[in-house]
């Protein structure tokens, strides 16, 4: 559950990065400018962020196993 909250927070942070530039001009204008190319950037960022977060979670599970193994041997 802790991991879920963490990943959720991380996801929001990454999304904030994408939308950060939009804060000044207003989101509407930001995404409509230059032929909606910003929408593509947003979508690509979401895909990358989502996959990275998922890999992060997998990595955590491996780390946990490694810790268990160390604990078991000593």
């Amino acid at each position, binding site marked *: 559950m802790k991991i879920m909250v963490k990943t959720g927070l991380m996801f929001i942070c990454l999304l904030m990065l994408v939308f950060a530039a939009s804060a000044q001009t207003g989101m509407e204008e930001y995404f409509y400018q230059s*032929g909606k*190319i910003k*929408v593509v950037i947003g*979508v690509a960022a979401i*895909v990358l962020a989502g996959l990275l977060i998922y890999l992060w979670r*997998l990595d955590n599970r491996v780390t946990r*196993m490694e810790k268990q*193994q160390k604990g078991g041997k000593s």
Partner: protein
Amino acid sequence: MKNWIKILCAALLLYAAVFSLWHPMAPGGLAVSATEFHPGRNEFEFFGYGTHFKEGESSLKVYVSVDSSAVYCAEVLQVIDESRAIVSVFLPDTISSKRFGFAANNNIDGTIIVDSPVGHKGFVFDPGTDNSECRYSVLQEEFTRFGFPYQPIIIESIRNLMWHVPMWFTMFVLMTIGFVFSIRTLGKPEGRVESDFDLKASSSAAVGLVFCVLGLITGSLWARFTWGDWWTNDPQLNGAMVVFLVYVAYFILRSSTPDEEKRARISAIFNIFAFVLMVVLLMVMPRFTEGLHPGKSGNPAFSKYDLDSSLRSVFYPACAGFILLGYWIYSLHYRIQKLEQHNENHG
């Protein structure tokens, strides 16, 4: 997993990522500044997108059509830059219809069409009238360049095709893997607790769910700026949401059944139903109802108007790349789960 698959996956994704953004757009007509036409001289601005009005200024011609039956030549007063030109058109008192259309021709871009609604004032309408003296020719064929097709409203966001759609294809492949292993789980004789098939089924469903979420979020963002809302009542969207919830229920079911043998069998049955539901909701149902997604409602998904060769050259590698990536993540997930299970049983 073989190394060459990983290299192929990386190469395909790299190619797709670069060319989905790098590839040029075909020129198109964005809008006209006119809001209302009246008999006599009408001056307005013509906006193109990715056009070469300045470069092809000598050959630039702008036309105003009335319900595609009559065409009036507009005079180009000034070319401001590559995508903006001020033109003026003389309209007679009597015209045949209220529907105006716009087109611009030049030697570089070919014919560009704008279809934006323009009001009218003071005209006499007579369907039989044809007092146009302008000759208009469509230059489309010979000027089609290698570029992503220009679509009004969508414009540059057509590039999302290489990011949003492969998510769903990957989910489909992963859920199919899960479906196959669920059937094989049920085929196992009773008493064999250590079932790899069940682990494989749940791993592929877990990774498939990740791609489902990504597809939903990216689709939502895209919908906001083309259809105007974060969520629309498109049958595809609602179907995808139901599929998402069903697969979430699959994992809730799994976590609520402590006995391994029982969990494997019950969740396998659930997964088979979930897969059938997914096929019905995402592939069958949208074809019987009207929706906003292109290529659906009766037509095959890959109709010739939705995907031209330039889109295909990036879209297919993107799909293959994301499917391989999904499979790669799935195999990682499975191996980790297998190790965890091993540690629990023997640690």
